[in-house]
């Protein structure tokens, strides 16, 4: 291998939920670092090019270097002894690792939750209330002649979203790309994204729900109070014209971001949007999709859902899965001081949770798995350094539209994958708790 650089074609970028799979990576001759990431966006480039294998210890126990095995034992001990162990994160790792994490929660009778609960958890809840009409991104690329973004800034958060999926691509049904489409943006301020829009609705902050509700009334031809203009900053005439355009299109799509999910109203804002899209299906084909952030947050939702029946915020205290956002979601569990041990995989709640939750994190034993030190790992009882998914680790990830892809890692890492560490912890927990390990199928 030495001496010549290696090229990986069709590599997959897990920086954001776009999960672009057309990246051409060049790995330097030392096999330790990526020199080129062709086709990647600015965020993807820095994700690949800035990735270095650091000289961290594989594990720390109480801040002191430890072997992997010692750390696994220590972590398993902490978790097995806890009454309310909580596992959190998982949006930046492979499905294979996520499966191990759910198994651990099951064998511990613990609690498991993903970062979904602090980004698109409200989307999940809205979906449970009202359903949704959605599509894989290719259907949007092929057919959508009306594209709307609500409360997100893809130009900066998902830079290739326009180019690959929704605005620019040409298709047999959209031979002229962007010219064949109407692009609409709804936001509280102009953004890089709104610059490209044919229609930009700058709405008053906190009026998303009212505006969506008014649009629903217009779609359904129901009574509507004119005060909506004053409330949202959008004139009724303008709104009527927009709704007409949406009804008249051939295939419409409404993308939405955290501007909708994380502002006052949360799951109801999303529910309103999903219902608007459902209502529009009385007139034409219309779909919606959350623009998910993390590279495999969609996979985390999927894995947790198929293994437990619920997509996030799952509690196994009673030996079977229970679901209740607000009750079993990590930010709430920590905020109320309920967890007595925390295992964080590929996430950093120490840097973005509420002050009360962070205070509690400092009081309880914490285990972290992350390629690099984080605010949370500073407080960790046991901190593992793991290999980075997509760059060093193969596995499965899900794009924001639930399309699964197999990663094409660029080079090996000296660190174990999340999956390897979690599997070892799981096996040790089973030993500690007297659970017979899985029987493998008889050899064929």
């Amino acid at each position, binding site marked *: 291998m030495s001496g010549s650089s290696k090229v990986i074609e069709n590599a997959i970028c897990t920086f954001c939920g776009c999960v672009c799979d057309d990246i051409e990576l060049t790995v330097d001759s030392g096999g330790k670092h990526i020199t080129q990431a062709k086709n990647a966006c600015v965020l993807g480039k820095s994700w690949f090019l800035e990735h270095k294998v650091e000289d961290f210890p594989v594990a720390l126990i109480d801040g002191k270097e430890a072997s992997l095995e010692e750390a696994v034992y220590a972590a398993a001990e902490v978790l097995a002894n*806890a*009454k*309310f*162990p909580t596992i959190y994160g998982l949006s930046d790792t492979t499905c294979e690792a996520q499966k191990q994490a759910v198994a651990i929660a099951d064998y*511990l*009778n*613990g609690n498991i939750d993903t970062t979904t609960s602090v980004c698109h958890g409200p989307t999940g*809840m809205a979906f*449970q*209330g009202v359903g949704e009409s959605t599509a894989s991104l290719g259907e949007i690329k092929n057919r959508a002649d009306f594209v709307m973004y609500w409360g997100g800034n893809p130009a900066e958060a998902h830079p290739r979203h326009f180019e690959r999926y929704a605005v620019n691509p040409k298709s047999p049904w959209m031979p002229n790309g962007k010219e064949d489409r109407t692009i609409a943006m709804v936001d509280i301020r102009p953004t890089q994204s709104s610059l490209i829009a044919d229609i930009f609705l700058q709405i008053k902050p906190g009026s998303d*729900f*009212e505006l969506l*509700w*008014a649009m*629903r*009334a217009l779609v*359904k031809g*129901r*009574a*509507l*109070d*004119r*005060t*909506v203009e004053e*409330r949202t900053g959008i004139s009724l005439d303008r709104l009527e014209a927009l709704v007409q355009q949406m009804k008249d299109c051939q295939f419409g799509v409404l993308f939405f971001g955290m501007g909708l999910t994380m502002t*006052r*109203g949360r799951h*109801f804002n999303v529910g309103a949007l999903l219902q608007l899209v459902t209502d529009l299906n009385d007139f034409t084909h219309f779909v919606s999709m959350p623009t998910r952030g993390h590279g495999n947050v969609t996979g985390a939702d999927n894995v947790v859902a198929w293994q437990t029946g619920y997509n996030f915020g799952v509690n*196994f*205290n*009673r030996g079977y899965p229970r*679901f*209740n*956002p*607000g*009750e079993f979601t990590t930010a709430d569990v920590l905020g*109320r001081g*309920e*967890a*007595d041990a925390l295992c964080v995989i590929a996430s950093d709640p120490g840097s973005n949770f509420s002050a009360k939750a962070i205070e509690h994190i400092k009081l309880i034993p914490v285990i972290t798995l992350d390629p690099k030190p984080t605010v949370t790992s500073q407080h960790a009882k046991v901190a593992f350094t793991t290999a980075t998914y997509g760059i060093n680790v193969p596995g499965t990830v899900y794009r924001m539209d639930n399309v699964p892809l197999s990663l094409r890692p660029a080079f090996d890492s000296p660190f174990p994958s999340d999956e390897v560490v979690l599997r070892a912890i799981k096996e040790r927990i089973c030993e500690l708790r007297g659970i017979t390990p899985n029987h493998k199928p008889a050899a064929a």
Partner: protein
Amino acid sequence: MKLLLHTLPSVPLETEVICPDKFIGNSLDAIGAMTVMHGNQACILTDFFTLTDDGLDTIKVEGDLSKVKLIGSEMTQGKIIINGSVGAHLGALMTGGEILVTGNAEDWVGREMSGGRIVIKGNAGHLVGSGVRGSDTGIQGGEIIIHGNAKNEVGNGMRRGLIVIGGNSGDFTGVNMKAGTIMVLGQLGQRPGASMVRGTIFSTQAAQLLPTFTYNTTYKPTFLKRYLIYLKKLGFTIDDAYLNGKYQSWSGDSLEMNKGEILLFSE
């Protein structure tokens, strides 16, 4: 029966066994040995509570119960008095009897309740009298009386019954309501009655309503006075101005059947 919390739970304690139906016909020892879940650990009631048999059927519970969930679950009869504050899911799936809490209650008071009465002297959390996530149906009957404030989604999906909030309610009060009555003696949060099909939401304060609500009139609804007098009997102080005043009547949500009503005190 008296229960005194002697050990503060370090993680949530699930105690659906604290319920008249479960205690009836059991000896003090048998009750003390009933299973409670302390996080993932199965414990017994006496691990946390001192039990005293005072010869009464009423269950009195005392202590800081803010981490104690599910008291009075599926209760059908009798009475529980909680001297202090209590954790989530109080009186979940209750069909009869009465629960009185002198302090505050956490989220999901009276979840999926269909009968009986819950009285909270202090404040309550989110989702008072609501259904579970994914279901379109909240409480199907009974009364939930909160003397203090309540947080968001009071009566989400409510189908029947009465919910009274003595103070203010949070956002989306009466969201998805199918029928029933929610009376807020203070201020309503944002977007009351979104998606309501039928039912009544009342407040003594002005509120900004969704654009899918239509103004009807300002009048003195006789039935409301009957309700307010009923509240007086339940121990609320009701100003004469509210008893005899006029109310704005709004219909909505026009996105649903437009048969819901919001009544706001006017003068």
